[in-house]
């Protein structure tokens, strides 16, 4: 019997949940919510400008939008990354609206979001490989404020970005910048892997 790696098994289960949710199975909606709510919540808590209400709103809006768009999801096994993309875009939309205070910013952000949520496929170099990569990148960070922030937020996970700013006594924007810089590093390395695999013709 062929035993699938855990990540693949999880994705197959996710696909089954999506199929059931599309059929109107309320239990499947609840299962998807329970499964991905912590991850969506962590994405929202990464924005230091957000208080607890903002985080709750982003979580709720993300699931509403995702459940409404499940029919458009062409790769149901990728519902996790898809949901998190929606969540990040909800958060960015909220930030854009707050900072710009204008309808135009809102419209632009919404258009971009719709485009993003309708995108299909993904990098997916190897299921689970990103996690190892992230661990390695954290260990490679030089000791200092960025590593401390990344460790507190991504490894320990108990504090929000805003709470980390309070604890470290630095501005919210500094925490956001440190986390974003690290995310960009991870994205660059994941993208390098995608390019390598593409270059090998896979």
């Amino acid at each position, binding site marked *: 019997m062929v035993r699938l790696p855990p990540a693949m098994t999880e994705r197959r289960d996710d696909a089954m949940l999506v199929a059931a949710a599309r059929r109107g199975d309320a239990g499947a909606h609840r299962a998807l919510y329970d499964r991905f709510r*912590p991850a969506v*919540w962590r994405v929202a808590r990464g924005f230091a400008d957000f208080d607890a209400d903002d985080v709750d709103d982003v979580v709720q809006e993300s699931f509403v939008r995702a*459940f409404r768009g499940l029919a458009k999801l062409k790769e149901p096994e990728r519902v996790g990354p898809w949901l998190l993309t929606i969540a990040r875009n909800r958060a*960015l939309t909220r930030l854009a609206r707050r900072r710009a205070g204008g309808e135009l910013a809102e419209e632009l952000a919404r258009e971009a979001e719709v485009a993003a949520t309708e995108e299909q496929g993904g990098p997916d170099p190897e299921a689970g490989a990103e996690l190892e990569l992230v661990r390695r990148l954290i260990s490679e960070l030089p000791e200092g404020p960025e590593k401390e922030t990344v460790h507190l*937020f991504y490894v320990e*996970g108990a504090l929000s970005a805003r709470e980390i700013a309070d604890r470290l006594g630095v501005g919210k924007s500094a925490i956001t910048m440190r986390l974003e810089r690290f995310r960009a590093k991870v*994205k660059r390395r994941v993208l390098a892997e995608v390019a390598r695999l593409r*270059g090998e013709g896979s």
Partner: protein
Amino acid sequence: MRVMHLTIPTYTALLDGTLPETEARELGSHLEAGCEVCERWLAERPTADRLDGDVDLALGALSASNAGANAGAGNDLEFARITRALAAVATPSALRRRWAGGLAVAAALAVAGVAVLVQRGAGPDRWDGTKGAVAQAVPLRLRFLVLQDGPGPVPGIEKGVSGQAVPAEASLQFQVELGREADVVLARAAGGSAEPFFHARLPAGRTVVSVSGQPAAYPLAQLTGPQRFLALAGEQPIEPADVDRAARGSAAGAGPGQPISLDVIEVQVR
């Protein structure tokens, strides 16, 4: 080898799997070498895409075991709120009630028998609910602060989170956020019935429940155990039957009349 920084066409083609293999190999080596220009380009992307989703999933998995089993776990109230929002979108509006005088109801409000007024919050942010929806239901959120006398002259003020434990000496100060102007009722659910304590027509945005221009607080003294507070909002006046139906746990939006939004918070009084 020429320098090949990321551009939107290259990036999109790579994610789509349409970038020619030779270019992909070059780009892979370039990114692997640690290009700061490309890293900055990735950091400054204005919107999230599928790469962000994969990265966030991996980053989230890092702390999933460290932050505790319940960190970020969902709850019934939030899921019910999501379900209601979905139902509001899916159900065509059934506006069967006639407009019955609108603002006449605005002043009809009471907190434990005492007439109250409302003041509009001065905050810059207006919550607009789920954007892009075609729902007729009014976007609604009920929020609250926990007020508690402390050693100093100023009472302690803490942002309330649904489900939290609060001492009986505390009071709750409610705030209502609306996507658009609506008739609003606040009530405490008690044993399958509702005890309304606030009824007013409120503007869009955040409104603090106030008495004579001063923020009003709902005292928790005499209460113990789980306490549910409901907020209902509708474009037309809300009837007592709507409130009772909501208190009994049925979906307010599924009632026979206008689409009514419902939000619920719960506290544990100890």
